[in-house]
């Protein structure tokens, strides 16, 4: 059967057919849809974990327990899971264990563009790299078998253009594999130094076996063409190179680590000149140079920054562009927070108070852009909470009165809790604002532990932020509706002046959640009375950053197609110029 599948859908399908029993992930672009699709298969127990480390450990535990297990994450998620990753290579597996790393070259929705092929080499874990949906499907299937055969986790590395591109996949059916027996074996699974030293020896021997595999496995292949140019490549870069050099000889590596040394030597003897075409880091190029081949063209010509595409490959290696129409000036369309977004209220007040805002990862990171321009820093998940503590350590108690951390509900559970413990334990005085919009909004509304729903939509225990903060020892806790600006302002004032740690929970669902959307649709839209509006002289409502509020003939105008009917803007207007449309029409 042929299906049109994205790379992520293909990974899910491959896992299902390979009799994967359990899977876990934390959502993150471009990896999110892998678990969402796995959750459709009843034969696989699928879970959203609080973060990638927990997901990884849960799945390694499942593998030790004999199940075929898959864990998926975005590239920076593997940083969070790096601790178990590094030692998982030592302990190996029982049931097959497959780690999906979905990297984001070009940073479409990420804070960096690290190349996780390096993680495979660093952790000494074999790496598969699909070049399209068909390979994503078949490589994942293959990885489960190889993982059990070689007693090691396998990393399958995708990138945005694999995960989110669709292609035709010839699929099969699930072949059931029973969960394996578990036998107690502390020498293998308990890494005290004495046992770990032995496991390290086993790991190094295993790597040599894997290198032999890499030299013979069919997914590392020489595609014979003209002997003039030979191209070494892997992943999506293969497609671009093949497009630009249709007649070259290729060494296409589906398993780039361990690097197939003998296969490369054979390939090198066939061609006159060698190009290495790869996205981001010179990963293959370094392996080739280690073998003593220094006369190759790679990162000296092809950028290591950003995504590749066919024209970059052509320009870099052929020094030519196809004839094309000149680039036209269009218009800037930056992504914005949604009309009526619950985050708008709190950022409006933060901006007014001119506080330092340690930001975090989520939709609200967009509050760094005009017209809100409120956020000072964003580094990684949980950074806001830990770093506001450090910032206040550096700048003293006075700074604490004008510095806050803002962090989403899902992000707080992912990595903010330990930071809050740090603040309380070390007698800090920082204010942490949890933007609780009842979902993981940025990645497309996944449930999390404080939503009371599982990945399958089943009810479960609901994490309570207030009780959690109390248990940690926070004494100043405020819960406010961020659409009530007066209450938000009051909470902020009290928290910032409180001589100890404070937590503010802004409690309102994301406007795009279906129930909330339906509720808002019943509200009347808001309209501006142009006679009362002071226009350019005021501009207060505009500073909310609500995309529904636009400027028309020097006055504010609310686009009725975009307005969701909340009343945030009414509260910002000092001239009482904004009204619900029904009242306005009646002349009230």
């Amino acid at each position, binding site marked *: 059967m042929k299906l*049109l599948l994205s790379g992520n859908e293909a990974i899910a399908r491959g896992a299902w057919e390979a009799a994967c029993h359990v899977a876990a992930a934390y959502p993150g672009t471009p990896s999110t849809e892998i678990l969402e699709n796995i959750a459709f298969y009843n034969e696989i127990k699928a879970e959203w974990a609080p973060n990638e480390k927990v997901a990884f450990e849960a799945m390694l535990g499942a593998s030790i327990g004999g199940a075929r297990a898959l864990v998926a994450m975005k590239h920076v998620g593997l940083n969070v899971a790096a601790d178990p990753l590094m030692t998982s290579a030592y302990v190996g597996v029982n049931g097959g264990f497959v780690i999906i790393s979905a990297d984001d070259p070009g940073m479409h929705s990420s804070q960096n563009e690290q190349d996780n092929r390096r993680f495979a080499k660093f952790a000494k874990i074999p790496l598969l790299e699909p070049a399209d949906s068909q390979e994503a499907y078949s490589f994942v299937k293959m990885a489960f078998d190889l993982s059990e055969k070689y007693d090691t986790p396998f990393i399958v590395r995708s990138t945005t253009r694999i995960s989110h591109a669709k292609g035709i996949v010839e699929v099969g059916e699930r072949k059931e594999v029973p969960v394996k027996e578990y036998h107690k074996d502390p020498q293998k699974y308990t890494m005290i130094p004495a046992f770990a030293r032995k496991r390290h020896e086993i790991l190094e021997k295993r790597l040599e076996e894997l290198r032999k595999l890499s030299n013979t496995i069919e997914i590392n292949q020489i595609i014979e063409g003209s002997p003039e140019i030979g191209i070494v490549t892997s992943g999506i870069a293969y*497609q671009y190179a093949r497009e630009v050099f249709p007649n070259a000889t290729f060494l296409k590596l589906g398993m780039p680590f361990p690097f197939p040394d003998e296969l490369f030597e054979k390939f090198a003897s066939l061609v006159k000149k060698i190009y290495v075409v790869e996205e981001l880091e010179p990963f293959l190029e370094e392996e080739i140079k280690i073998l003593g081949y220094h006369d190759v063209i790679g990162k000296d010509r092809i950028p290591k920054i950003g995504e590749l595409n066919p024209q970059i490959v052509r320009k870099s290696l052929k020094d030519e562009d196809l004839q094309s129409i000149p680039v036209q000036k269009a218009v800037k369309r930056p992504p914005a927070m949604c009309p009526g977004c619950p985050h708008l209220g709190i950022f409006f007040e933060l901006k007014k108070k001119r506080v330092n805002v340690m930001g975090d990862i989520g939709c609200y990171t967009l509050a760094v852009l005009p017209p809100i321009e409120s956020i000072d820093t964003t580094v990684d998940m949980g950074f806001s909470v830990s770093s506001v503590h450090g910032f206040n350590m550096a700048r003293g108690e006075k700074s604490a009165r004008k510095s806050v951390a803002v962090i989403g509900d899902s992000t707080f559970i992912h990595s903010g809790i330990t930071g809050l413990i740090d603040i309380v334990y070390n007698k800090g005085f920082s204010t942490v604002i949890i933007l609780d919009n009842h979902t993981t909004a940025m990645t497309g509304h996944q449930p999390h532990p404080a939503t009371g729903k599982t990945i399958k939509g089943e009810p479960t225990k609901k994490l309570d932020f207030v009780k959690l903060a109390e248990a940690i020892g926070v004494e100043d806790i405020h819960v406010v509706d961020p659409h009530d600006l007066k209450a938000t302002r009051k909470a902020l004032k009290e928290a910032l002046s409180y001589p100890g740690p404070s937590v503010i929970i802004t409690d309102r669902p994301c406007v795009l959640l279906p129930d909330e959307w339906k509720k808002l649709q019943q509200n009347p839209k808001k309209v501006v009375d142009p006679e009362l509006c002071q226009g350019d002289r005021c501009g207060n409502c505009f500073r909310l950053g609500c995309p529904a509020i636009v400027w028309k003939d020097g006055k504010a105008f609310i686009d009725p197609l975009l307005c969701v009917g909340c009343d945030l803007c009414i509260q910002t207007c000092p001239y009482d110029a904004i009204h619900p449309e029904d009242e306005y029409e009646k002349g009230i």
Partner: protein
Amino acid sequence: MKKGYNVIVSGVGGQGIILASELLSLAAMEAGYDVKKSEVHGMSQRGGDVVSHVRFSEKVYSPLIEQGTCDVILAFEKAEALRYLHYLKPKDGIVIMNNLEIIPLPVTAGEDTYPENIENTIKKYANLVVVDAIDMANNLGNPRVANTIMLGVASKFFDISEDVWIRVITNRVPKKTIEINKKAFELGRNLKIDF
């Protein structure tokens, strides 16, 4: 060997670009082509520009279209046609453009200007079809089928039979909207084009 096509579907978040490119890809697959399509989702794209690359031919390698090789731009908004014009083949390229301007925040904030004379600029380089898709959709009773009307117009330029299109639409759109989507597709497909 059937002729292959490179198509860019572009517009603003929320306009149904992904669904339109999905329907095109499925139709091409049904018609026996190899197909790849690529777009980026993630960063909340509401109000942001959205583009999908669709390629179909005997064998497709890159999911991304190379600049200068695009056959058809199907733009749901005027400035979003202009943004990708350099992808078009320098000769005989086709732009199918919805007659709609969506003004972004930086323009209302006075930090950017919306391009003028978009039709004339495009006509200098390409064959342009302007479609009043919103009006046509409103006449059918549902402004949301504007994208199906646009797809109907585009369908005339590909070697994919009408029954394949109807089958794909019937299988893929919500059940309640099958009839109106079919009508919208026909309306677009029967639009008289002269350039």
